[in-house]
């Protein structure tokens, strides 16, 4: 089995108020593309309820760093009580959404994702030695880069949501 190491623990960004669902989703998609991650939308659910729309999305963009290591950012989005409203901003009428947003972000570094080092017991032992003594500097470099990417994404989302705060 491949090994998954949590690099950044799950942290939630919470927001309530005006925002644009489309723009928020676009921001995440653009960020994923610009950083060279492959966009994987594992699960998306959108339902219309009495209190407003409920949108649940689980995104798992990943980036193959080498044949051995892969960076994965797990993004869970929950938007609830989402209603469409019309507001006037800078003298212009604009259609926005009003609701609650919870975005949880966690990042994981997956090693041996091609399952090459697990075929035989001696290979598994060799892999442990390889990771511990030879590949460590590379792995810590990957972890630092993934940590930076995750923090950057969080900052981007927070900045985006702050734009709508009054």
């Amino acid at each position, binding site marked *: 089995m491949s090994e998954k190491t949590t690099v950044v623990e799950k942290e939630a960004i919470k927001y309530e108020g005006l925002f644009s*669902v*489309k723009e928020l*989703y*676009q921001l*995440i*998609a*653009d960020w994923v593309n610009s950083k060279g991650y*492959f*966009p*994987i*939308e*594992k*699960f*998306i*659910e*959108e*339902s*219309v309820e009495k209190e407003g*729309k409920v*949108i649940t*999305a689980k995104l798992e963009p990943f980036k*193959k760093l080498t*044949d051995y290591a892969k960076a994965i950012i797990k993004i869970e*989005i929950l*938007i609830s009580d*989402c209603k469409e409203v019309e507001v006037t901003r800078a003298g212009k009428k604009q259609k926005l*959404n009003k609701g609650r947003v919870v975005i949880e972000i966690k990042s994981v570094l997956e090693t041996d994702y*091609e399952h090459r080092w697990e075929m035989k017991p001696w290979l598994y032992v060799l892999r442990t030695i390889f990771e511990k003594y030879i590949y460590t500097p590379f792995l810590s470099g990957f972890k630092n880069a993934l940590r930076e990417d995750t923090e950057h994404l969080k900052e981007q989302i927070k900045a985006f949501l702050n734009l709508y705060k009054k």
Partner: protein
Amino acid sequence: MTKISTPSINIKHKGIFDLSAVLQGIKNWFEGDEFKVHYPAHKLKQPAGGWEHEMTIYGERKMNEYVKFTITLFIRLYDIKDIEVIKEGKKVQTNSGRITADISGEIELDFENRFDGSKFLQAFQDFYHKYIIKQDIGDYWEDEIMLKIVNLGKFIREMCQQEAVA
């Protein structure tokens, strides 16, 4: 013949959508991307809460003489009701209900079984996959099919007029 499966994506939607447009759109999407469309299973039920539709659709496309893509879509529509809505001042017949869609893909290498003749050919094929076209499979074909799966998911969500579409 070697088969490589890709991760699947799952979409759920509850609300108003045009059922026939969604189904026709999916067929057009496959055909527009040069896939041959097959409908191996189709179930239709009419319980009290609204009718149910369950179908499997898969598209096949030969990418070259050696690589074939198969994208399978399992779609379940339930609580489907015919409704009338007013759109731009005009009455329009449409549907309300729920959709769940699972999309998965498979890459078939050597789909014409050219390397199946002898043990030598199989060993040669193994060498070919592991050392000659390894990068093509991992970095090109796998990404290519995943992009198509992501695009099909996006297309279905657009057809359902979901908000979270980038």
